[in-house]
C-alpha cells in the first residue's frame, strides 16, 4: 500500500557524463565572465541546463548515474518545488509526486539535454553572453508581459 511518497535513496543528481567534461567547466567559466560574480555554483548551472532542456521539450537519457551535480539535501525549497512542477508537466499526472526517483529522473534528463544544447551554443554563438541574455530576457518577457 502506497501510504507515503516513495522517498529516493539517491543523495545527488548527476551530469550527463558525455558532456560534463569540459562542458560544465566551460559553462561555469563563461557564466563567471558574464555575471562578474566570484563563484557560480553547480545548482545555478544545473537550473540553467534544466530550463534550456525543458524549453526544448526533449529529454536525454542519462545512462551512467554519477552523483556529481547537485546534492539533493542542499536543494532549496523553490528548486524542489520547480522540479516537482516540471515532473507533473512531463507526466501530465499529479501522482508522479508520489515517486521522488521519477521526479529526479525527469529533471536530470531535461538538464542533460540542456547541457548538450548549451555546449553546442557555446561553440556556435559568436557571443554566448548575448545569446543567453537575449533568450532569458525574451522568455521572461513572454511569460510576464505576454
Amino acid at each position: 500500500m502506497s501510504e507515503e511518497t516513495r522517498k529516493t535513496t539517491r543523495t545527488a543528481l548527476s551530469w550527463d557524463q558525455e558532456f560534463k567534461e569540459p562542458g560544465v567547466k566551460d559553462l561555469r567559466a563563461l557564466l563567471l565572465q558574464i555575471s562578474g560574480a566570484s563563484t557560480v555554483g553547480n545548482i545555478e548551472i544545473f537550473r540553467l541546463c534544466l530550463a534550456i532542456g525543458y524549453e526544448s521539450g526533449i529529454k536525454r537519457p542519462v545512462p551512467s548515474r554519477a552523483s556529481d551535480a547537485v546534492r539533493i539535501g542542499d536543494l532549496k525549497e523553490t528548486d524542489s518545488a520547480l522540479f516537482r512542477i516540471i515532473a507533473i508537466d512531463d507526466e501530465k499526472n499529479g501522482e508522479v509526486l508520489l515517486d521522488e526517483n521519477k521526479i529526479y529522473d525527469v529533471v536530470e534528463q531535461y538538464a542533460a539535454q540542456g547541457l548538450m544544447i548549451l555546449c553546442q551554443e557555446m561553440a556556435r554563438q559568436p557571443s554566448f553572453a548575448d545569446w543567453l541574455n537575449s533568450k532569458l530576457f525574451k522568455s521572461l518577457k513572454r511569460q510576464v508581459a505576454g
Partner: protein
Amino acid sequence: MRIERIRVENFGVLHNIDLDLAASNPNIVFVNGFNGRGKTTFLDSIKWAFYAEEPRQSKFLSNYALKNTPDQGTIVVRVVVSLIMDSNGAIATVEREQTFQRIQDGVSRRVGASVLTVQTRNATAGSLTETLSEIDAEKWLNHYFAKKLMNFFLFNGESMAKFFDSKVKDNIEGAVRQIARVDRFEDMANGLDTIAQAHNKKIARLVGARTERIALDLEDARSVLRKLHDSAVSDSKTLSELREQREKKSAILEGKEGIEASVVELKEVEKSIGVFQENLAGAQELFQNEIMSYGVLGILAPAMNELFVQIENAKKEDRLPPPWDPERIRALLANETCICGAHLTPNGEAASQLTKLIERYQVSSTVGKQLSELGSKANEVKSALTGGWKIVNLHNSSIVENQRQLNISVNRRTELLDSISDIDLTEVGSAASEIKRLDREIERLVGSISATEVKGRLVQGQVDQLQRDFDKASEGNKAAEKLRIEAKFAREVAAAARSIHVEAIKRVRERIQDSFNAKFGTVKEGSFQSEITDDFEIVIKNEYGQVTELSEGEKMMQAYAFSMALREVINLSFPLIVDTPFGRLDGKNRQDLARKIVTFLKAQTAGREFQAMFMMHDLEYTPYTKRYFSELQPFEAFLGSDPENPTVRSRMGFGIDPDWTQVEAWKDWSEGKIK
C-alpha cells in the same frame, strides 16, 4: 638640488646660451623676455635634456645654424645642465646632444639618435671621478628625474589652472606607485613564489607520484596565473602610455585657433561618453545580477500550467481539498467500528472494498496535499516573476537608453574629430586621426584587461584547489610537512608583499596630503581641508566639509603646492621651473597671485635647500610685481634679441632687458619714476 649652470647650443632660437649661476648661487632665478625670445624654448631644452621630450622640428634645430652651415656640414644641438645634487656639494652634469646634417637650405637630416651622458663628481675630490655609460646614464636619469614626475617639475603657467582637471590623476597615481616602490614588492613576491615552487617540487619527490602530478598541475596553473598577471600589468602600463599619448594629441587640438569650439565640444562629448560608459556598465551589471535567476524561472514557468490543470481536476473530482482523513477511518476499521450503518466484519468483503477505497483516497489525499502546497508555491513564483520582470525590464531600459546616448555621443565625437581632421592643418589632422586610433586601442585594452582579470579569478580558484589537494596528499610525511610549512610561509609572505603596496600607496598619499595641506595653507585664505581621494583626485573642502570652488590663482597655487609636496615626499628637491607663472590672469588677479607666490616662495626658502626658476614676459614681470619679488632677492636674467641676428637668434643677458626699458612702465622705472 640646485641648477648651477645651463648651456644651450643650436636649440631653436637659442643659438648659444649660457646661464651660469655658480657665483651667485641664487634661490630664485627669473629668466625674462618678450614673447618669442625663447623662454618656452629654454624650458623645452631642459625638458629635452632630462626627459628626451623633443619639441616640434621647427623649434628644435636652430634655423640660424642651419642657414649658416654648408651643405653636408653637421650641426650639433646640445644642452648641458650642471646640478649641485646635495648639501655636500656632489655635482652631476647631464648632457644631451643630437647631430643633424644639412642637406640644403632649410633641409636637414638627423644623424643617429640623441646621445646622453651623465657625469658625476664629488666636489671635495675636485675632479671627475666617474663617467657613466649611456645605459647607466638613462638609469641615473630615471632615478632622479622619473618621466612620470615631469609634469610636477616643469610647469607651464597657462595650463596650471587646469592642471588638476585632466591628466594629473594618472600622473599622481604613477608617481605614488613609484614612490611606494610597488615594483620592488612585486619582484619580492615573485622571488618568494619561486621558493615556494621549488619546495613543492621537493615535497612531490618525497611523497610520491600522485603528489608529483598535482605539483605539476599546480606549477602549470601558477605559471598561467603569473602570465595573466604579467599580461595585466603590461596592458595597464600600455594603457597608461596610450592615455598619456592621447592627452598630448588632445593638447595639440586645444592649441589650435579656429577649432576651439569643436575642441570644447569634443571635451564635453568625451566627458559624456565617460558618464554613459559608466552608467551602461552599471546597468549591465544590475541586469546581469537579475536575469539569470528570473530568466530561468521565465523559461520554466509554463510548466506551472499543467500544475494548475491538475489542481482544477482534483477540485472537480472532489479530491481537493482532501475529502477526509484516511488515518482516522483506518483507525475506526481496526477497532471494528461501523461507520456506515452496515455491519463490517474485519477482513470481510465489505471491509476489504472499503480498504481499497481508502487507499485510492489516500493517494488522492497525499497528492492533493502536495498539489495544494505546490499551487501556493507556484503562485509565489508567479508573483516573484512579475516583480522580477519589472526590475529586469527597468535595467534593460537603462541599458538601451545609455547605449543609445553613448552611440549618439560616440557618433558626435567621430563627427567632431572628422571635422577637425578636415581642417587643413596637417598636425591637427594627424592628431585627430591618431586620437581615433588611440581611442580604439584604449577600448580594446580596457576590454582585454577586464577579460584577463576574470580569467585570473578563475585560475586563482584552480590554484587554490590544487594547493589544497597537494597539501592533503603530502600529509603524513614529516620531511614534506616541514617543507610544506616553509612553502606556505613563502606564499603568505609573497601575498603580503603583493598587498603591502596597497598600504604603501595609502601611506604615501597621506604624506603628500599632509605636506600639501601645510604648503597650500600658507596661501589659501580661510579654513580648508584637502583630501586626495582613492581615485587620486584632489578635493578641497571648506570648514563645513563642502567642496570649495577655487579661484584661478588658487588653482595655480594648488599646482605649485602639490608639486612641492611631492618633492618633499620623494626627497628629491629638483628646482621648481615655471614658464609664464601668471598664465593668462588679468591685472588684479595677477597681483593677488604675485603676493601668493612670494608668500609661498618665502615659506619654501626659509632655512631650506630650494631653488625656483620663473620665466616671465613683460606683462607678468612689471616694475610693480618686481616690487613684490624684491624681498626674495631674485637673480634676474633675460632672453633678448641678438643685435646681429634679431629674428633668428636670442641672447642671454643679466638684469632687465634694455629693450624693455624702452616701453611703458619699464621706461618709467628706468627713469626712476617708479621705485
